């Protein structure tokens, strides 16, 4: 048991460490431009500012959890799909559809009693996300169209749908820029606010409820067993009498549901309206979150919090150390690189323990070409 936990933690920890070192090299090399002179200690100032900004104060902690909430939910979506041998790059689109639907329904219910408005608006976003996840699931199940390509395409379609809705039917008249109306009473109640602009909504509890549910679904239910079997070996699953088509559709739908939920609570809890150009990278960050946790739903909570902390600490990093916030994107990419290049990491740290990757990923690549294994 102890060996298993060590194996599960060794690779992510090593990958993060190497990413921080590689990031430090970039920071040192660019220090003459940042501070005007060569400064080999700049990485220390940078990283300590991130930690201080995210964990050093109550406000920082609040920002961390708020930033981690969508990351964990979409990360769960990606992780769940990984377990079924599916690569959901569509978190972005599902998130946007959930967000814009919740914004529209929320605005329509802005004067209804909160006890009605909030759940209905969340539910609407969740259903929209699920429907948007169902599309690539059904396409994969019945036509063999690979979900990686279809979800990428659907991401852009979602972007244009949002742009159309918010500049058209949902546009609030009189606003200085294209945005939907305020959600009013459909706003998720704020549970923490010290009047410093750092506030937390009730929705931050949702990831901590959703993650155990997904874990239970995957490891304690018959359905989860079937999902994992399809992910590990679709042919074996079919021989055992399972229905890969149904499972693929169901998994993508639940994945879309989680991402749609994330979009809904982000709008109802943080933004309170939908802008036409909603800038988010959550769908891609969620891939790092899921892989860092090796697609384990409970692990996703921790990896989501870690990436959330990096996001929350970024502003202070830019102010104190002068390092642009884009450093966070670079660090995330580097973490993903070292997680993937595991043979390199193993050599550096002499890790002999097995595991570290997500084994189900083997099925993802295998089904991309013409030789589809899930299509009957």
């Amino acid at each position, binding site marked *: 048991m102890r060996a298993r936990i060590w194996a599960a933690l060794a690779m992510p920890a090593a990958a993060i460490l190497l990413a921080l070192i590689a990031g430090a090299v970039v920071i040192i090399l660019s220090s003459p431009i940042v501070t005007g002179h060569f400064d080999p200690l700049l990485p220390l100032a940078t990283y300590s500012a991130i930690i201080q900004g995210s964990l050093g104060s109550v406000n920082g902690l609040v920002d961390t959890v708020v930033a981690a909430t969508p990351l964990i939910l979409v990360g769960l979506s990606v992780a769940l799909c990984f377990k079924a041998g599916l690569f959901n790059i569509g978190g972005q689109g599902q998130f946007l559809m959930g967000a814009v639907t919740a914004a529209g329904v929320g605005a329509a219910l802005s004067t209804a009693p909160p006890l009605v408005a909030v759940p209905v608006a969340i539910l609407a976003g969740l259903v929209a996300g699920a429907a948007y996840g169902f599309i690539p699931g059904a396409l994969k199940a019945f036509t063999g*169209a690979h979900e990686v390509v279809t979800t990428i395409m659907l991401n852009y379609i979602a972007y244009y749908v949002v742009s159309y809705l918010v500049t058209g039917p949902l546009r609030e008249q009189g606003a200085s820029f294209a945005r939907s109306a305020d959600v009013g009473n459909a706003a998720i109640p704020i549970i923490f606010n010290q009047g410093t602009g750092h506030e937390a909504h009730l929705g931050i509890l949702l990831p901590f409820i959703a993650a155990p549910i997904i874990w239970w679904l995957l490891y304690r239910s018959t359905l989860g067993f079937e999902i994992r079997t399809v992910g590990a070996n679709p042919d074996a699953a079919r021989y055992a009498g399972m229905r890969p088509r149904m499972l693929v559709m169901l998994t993508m739908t639940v994945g879309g549901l989680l991402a749609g939920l994330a979009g809904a609570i982000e709008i109802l809890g943080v933004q309170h309206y939908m802008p036409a150009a909603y800038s988010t990278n959550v769908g891609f960050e969620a891939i790092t979150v899921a892989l860092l946790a090796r697609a384990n739903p409970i692990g996703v909570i921790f990896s989501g919090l870690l990436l959330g902390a990096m996001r929350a600490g970024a502003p202070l990093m830019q102010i104190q150390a002068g390092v642009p916030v*884009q450093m966070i994107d*670079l660090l995330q990419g580097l973490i993903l690189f070292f997680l993937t290049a595991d043979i390199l990491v193993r050599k550096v740290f002499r890790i002999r323990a097995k595991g570290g990757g997500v084994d189900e990923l083997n099925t993802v690549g295998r089904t*991309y070409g013409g030789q589809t294994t899930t299509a009957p």
Partner: protein
Amino acid sequence: MLAPLFDVPVLGLIVQLVDYLINVLTVNGALILALSAPLALGAMCGVMNERSGVVNIGIEGMMLAAAFSGWYVASIVGQAIPADPSGVFGATPALLIGVLAAIGTGLLLSVVHAWLCITVRADQIISGTIINIVAFGLTGYLDLLLSQGSQPSGGKFQPFDPPQWLMDLPFVGWLFRMVLEQGPITMSVIVLAVVLQVLLFRTRWGLRTRAVGEHPKAAETVGINVIRLRYQNVILGGIFAGLGGAWFTLDFGSSFQIGMTNGRGYIALAALIFGRWHPVGALGAALLFAASGALGTAIRTTPPPGQLGDFLTSIPEQFFSALPYIVTIIVLAGVVGRSTPPAADGQPYEREAVT
């Protein structure tokens, strides 16, 4: 010339639409070809990869990084060696070295992709995602740092100036304008697509590449070095992505903005699929996608008169922008003509142990 038919019921509207389409496409021909260049170049990078069995969704990141390095290197060289634009495409040493830097960046990222996909046998989609994220983060980081000192532009290529009488020819004049009134990178796209098409389907290298992409084991048994061929193809594919990146900052525009490729690498992926993994097909798809965008804009700015205009302006502009993505899904799903990737696309190759 179709005007007499405009008043015929029903048919008249269709004729009006055709007339309007022809008008939009001929007037905007040059712009459409220019906008299709990065899509076609990205798709050609994809052809090189996927025909030999390696999925590449990192085209977006490769083009973005190449756009940045091309712009930055051209800027530095431009300051070091100031030169007046020459007669040929307004080329300066700065621009030429910039293009080389962009191609070098494409090659470099392709080496990373090849190593992760072929040697590490990592998931190829994750490898592409890494390239996209790192390229976005690194170029954004560097751009913010450098623009504090407001880096001057290294300039851009000038479009070729074809003789006026050629462009005034009836019926075909617009075609000359479309193809000739272009910067060097855009103009090279048509040639590159045809050359790659011939190489892929008429040479020994092409046959081997396609064999490796369809059935690597069979290819290996007849003596083709699968690993080496895949490395070679993936890395050389980076040239196209690099050139596609250079288009953004040295041919079409002359400055760099964070995230300026703006999903064009993904549309390139769509063009690749829509063009059924053929270079010329991909160029056709890229032209179609660019035309769709141009049509959406034209309807907003200069709508046709009458009923047809009312109908067309009632379609949201976003629909035309989303059309390439919708069409790609439809084609991939096999609803209208099936598009099937090479059979071994996405599968890591493991050589069987020699005993």
